[in-house]
């Protein structure tokens, strides 16, 4: 299950780095994993903006 996105910027970087490693370990190519993590960041930012109003 995906964890909730952390609040601080430093924690966020660690979170997305760990997410990238997890995706590569599951069998995605590095290029695809980076693409999915980029999209995940955008999705999380969109959700966060919506929640903040």
């Amino acid at each position, binding site marked *: 299950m*995906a964890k909730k996105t952390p609040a601080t910027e430093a924690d966020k970087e660690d979170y997305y780095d760990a997410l990238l490693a997890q995706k590569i370990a599951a069998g*995605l190519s590095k290029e695809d994993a980076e*693409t*999915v993590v980029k999209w995940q960041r955008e*999705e999380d930012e969109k959700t966060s903006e919506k929640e903040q109003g």
Partner: protein
Amino acid sequence: MKHLDKLLLFTGATIAGTSPELGQISVANAAQNYAGSLAQDVAGYLAGLPSTDEEVLFNMLFPGLQTNDFFQFAKADDEAFLTEADDSDIRAIGASFKRVEYRGTTVTERTRQKGLTWRVDHKTLPKVNGQVVSGWENRYAAALKNRLVRADKVRGLALLDASAVNANKVWSAATNPDGDMREMVSATRTAMGQMPTHLVLGYMAQQLRQDAYEAATRANHNMSKHADYTMEQLAAYLGTKKVILEDGIKQTAKGATKANTTGLVAYSYHATDSPILDDPSNIKRAWSPVDGGGEWAVSIKEQTVFTDITVWHESLIFVPIVAGIRKLTVSAS
């Protein structure tokens, strides 16, 4: 029997170990017949065996296509829906037409050999008048195949999960789970360019969804009928080809707690039922023929007190297009 070894040479038969000795009846000797050799009859039994529920589910989740053990495919770049919205397809007098091209990236991949060996003790086999009841190899081979299918399904689900863009959602009496799934279907359509064919609903997510619609505290009682939806009705409501309830169980060690293969999650993606290497599916399963020519191979090696049965196959679940694979992670609060 004097020229048995020469006769065997003519028939093309081979015998493991030493050459037969005079007076020794060795051709029917099980230990030599099956000395780690392919058991085509058992492989044939596996090929003709009706699929188990788990295998049907596996094939629906990850439609298979036959390839060589090394294969190439064009990984789609994001070009399929390019549109000349600026009228650049209209040729000016004396000018040439706009020239376009698709630049897919060619990827080389290979199937992986996956197998398990079961050591069957002869003491455990049923006997009648001192003779082992025939056909027992088939049952063990079928059990091994089921286990390999489950392992590959779990591997495929992990890859699907890693390829998905996730959104966290709360499913409760105050929310609309099916609305969240429609939003996910729509997100796949926009990212992929096509409606998703698959919506995979984890067993626990389905439980939570039904709880949400059954709740007595739900303000919009008209929606409570959604709890009764069959997967076909839900697919029609969401606008996807099928909804697959993934209710598999896995256990990583004897005595360990059993777990759902898909938990509080739902996925949407596009995958054609009969894929080819270059069709625009998000996920595919390549399988290459094993020794004997089929999808599954069986080898039997008989010893004095036990027999080793090995079942294996060669496959790779891969994601040619990541765009559009979406996931919902749901919780009750």
